[in-house]
């Protein structure tokens, strides 16, 4: 750009770039920047709106005992429901995906895949009502049984709810909701396990299950984790189904089967937001910020797990 370049320097060579390449690179880069801007915008909004609640004196926060004791139980409730859902849904989804890709006759596999995908299309309000009307009463006997027989585990310490509108029921409903996401992704990655390596296993004398252990599961591992994280994201943020099913208490308890389970962040925001004013709004937004951070953290953790053994991922 300046005219005082040293004469020995070779003239700048510019690679020829075709217009198609330039347009594509430009639009791809634009999309990338756009998504970053949206993320930054949401984060900035959450932070700026949460600041009044973060700085307010404890007695002004709803509940009168400060922000931490307002959000704390909600965090517990959120994590409890989502993790329970994940623990139930992931193995089930992996099993379904394996059955569809490697065991079921072709026609049954296609039908099953279709039905499971349909589960994803059901609106969450419907899940909520189903949870309230069907799941909760059905699960009451289990609640009572768990309180009697598993009461020594803190999760199942009584007294059991007689309505079934508990964190346990919520976890099950959420599990059904996230099942299609996880199983769809698991199915996709399992079906792409290279024939080359599946045949290598079979030629060594592996049974079908051994072949799956050697050549399919390790290959699909990172995909299953990614699917589980998407499912977890949905479970963490689920609003309606939780709000309808749970008769939320207020204590920060890990008890799954009592009436005192705390609500979740998302459903609490949905229930309180319409009537909230002033600092109440800021408090809810602060809880939203916490949810945002939890999700971010979970995703970073998943990424770390996936990358830890990137050399062995089979992607090379």
């Amino acid at each position, binding site marked *: 750009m300046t005219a005082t370049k040293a004469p020995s320097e070779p003239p700048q060579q510019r690679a020829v770039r075709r217009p198609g390449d330039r347009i594509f690179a430009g639009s791809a880069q634009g999309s990338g920047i756009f998504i970053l801007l949206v993320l930054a915008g949401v984060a900035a909004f959450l932070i700026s709106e949460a600041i009044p609640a973060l700085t307010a004196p404890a007695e002004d926060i709803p509940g009168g005992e400060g922000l931490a004791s307002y959000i704390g139980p909600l965090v517990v409730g959120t994590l409890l429901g989502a993790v329970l859902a994940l623990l139930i849904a992931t193995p089930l989804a992996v099993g379904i995906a394996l059955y569809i890709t490697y065991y079921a006759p072709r026609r049954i596999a296609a039908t099953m895949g279709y039905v499971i995908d349909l589960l994803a299309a059901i609106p969450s309000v419907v899940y909520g009502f189903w949870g309230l009307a069907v799941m909760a009463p059905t699960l009451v006997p289990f609640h009572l049984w768990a309180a009697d027989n598993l009461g020594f585990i803190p999760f199942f310490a009584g007294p059991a709810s007689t309505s079934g509108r508990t964190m346990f029921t919520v976890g099950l409903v959420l599990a059904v909701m996230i099942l299609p996401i996880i199983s769809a992704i698991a199915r996709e990655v399992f079906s792409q396990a*290279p024939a*080359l*390596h599946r*045949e*290598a*296993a*079979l*030629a*060594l*004398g*592996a*049974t079908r299950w*051994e072949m799956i252990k*050697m*050549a399919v599961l*390790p*290959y699909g*591992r990172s995909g299953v984790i990614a699917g589980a994280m998407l499912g977890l994201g949905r479970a963490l943020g689920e609003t309606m189904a939780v709000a309808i099913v749970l008769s939320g208490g207020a204590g920060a308890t890990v008890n799954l089967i009592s009436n005192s389970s705390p609500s979740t962040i998302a459903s609490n925001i949905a229930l309180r937001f319409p009537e909230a004013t002033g600092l109440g709004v800021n408090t809810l937004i602060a809880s939203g910020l916490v949810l945002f951070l939890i999700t971010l953290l979970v995703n970073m953790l998943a990424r770390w797990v996936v990358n830890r053994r990137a*050399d*062995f*991922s*089979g*992607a*090379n």
Partner: protein
Amino acid sequence: MAKRIEVSDLNIFYGNFKAVEGVNVSIEPRSITALIGPSGCGKSTFLRSLNRMHEVLPGARVEGKVVMDGQDLYGSDVDPVNVRRQIGMVFQRPNPFPTMSIYDNVIAGNRLNNNRMKKSDTDDLVEKSLKGANLWNEVKDRLDRPGSSLSGGQQQRLCIARAIAVEPDVLLMDEPCSALDPISTLAIEDLMAELKERFTIVIVTHNMQQAARVSEQTGFFNLNGVGQPGRLIEFNPTEKIFSNPDQKATEDYISGRFG
């Protein structure tokens, strides 16, 4: 240890398509048998029928008999999994398990057979198998690295190490050198010459010099036209095939006057 395979009246199908027809052959123990012929004439299909790998494809089936030292491999009470444990296979494209280390790749087959092996035993087995595959010196310092971190030729020798670690009776190789450079190819040919002391080896190759260099017996597959089944046209000692074949088609093929 090395066993003889007798094939009689073997027809091989993909669904309704008959890919190979009427194969009768006897494969000698402790020797290398080469299968040559133009692409698509059914060499791989035939090879895969010997260890019952053919039937893993949906709709694929076999008629006829394959007998190994008196045992009918397609007998109704024979588990194909056991057949594959006795008859090892090396594929055209090197296929070490990318999610396993070099060490774990070598003993992958042994882990299937029995889970409880002492660490010192597996260490010995890994060293012996890698030495047997002429790979030990190149990888002994990085046994915990992924198998996919090796070069193509090394990966193929790793696959051979994996196949011989279970001490099979027979080793099937489907164009094991076609993805490799000449140096790696020679390394594997030398290796085969050593391995035939212990195993029965059947190798498919489209490289006629290779067949002439390594094998004792050679089978020539051919097909009459597209959509026709492939047939074993001639099976003779390698020397005879390459100097004075019985069939005109064989002579045309090896002298390059083909098609």
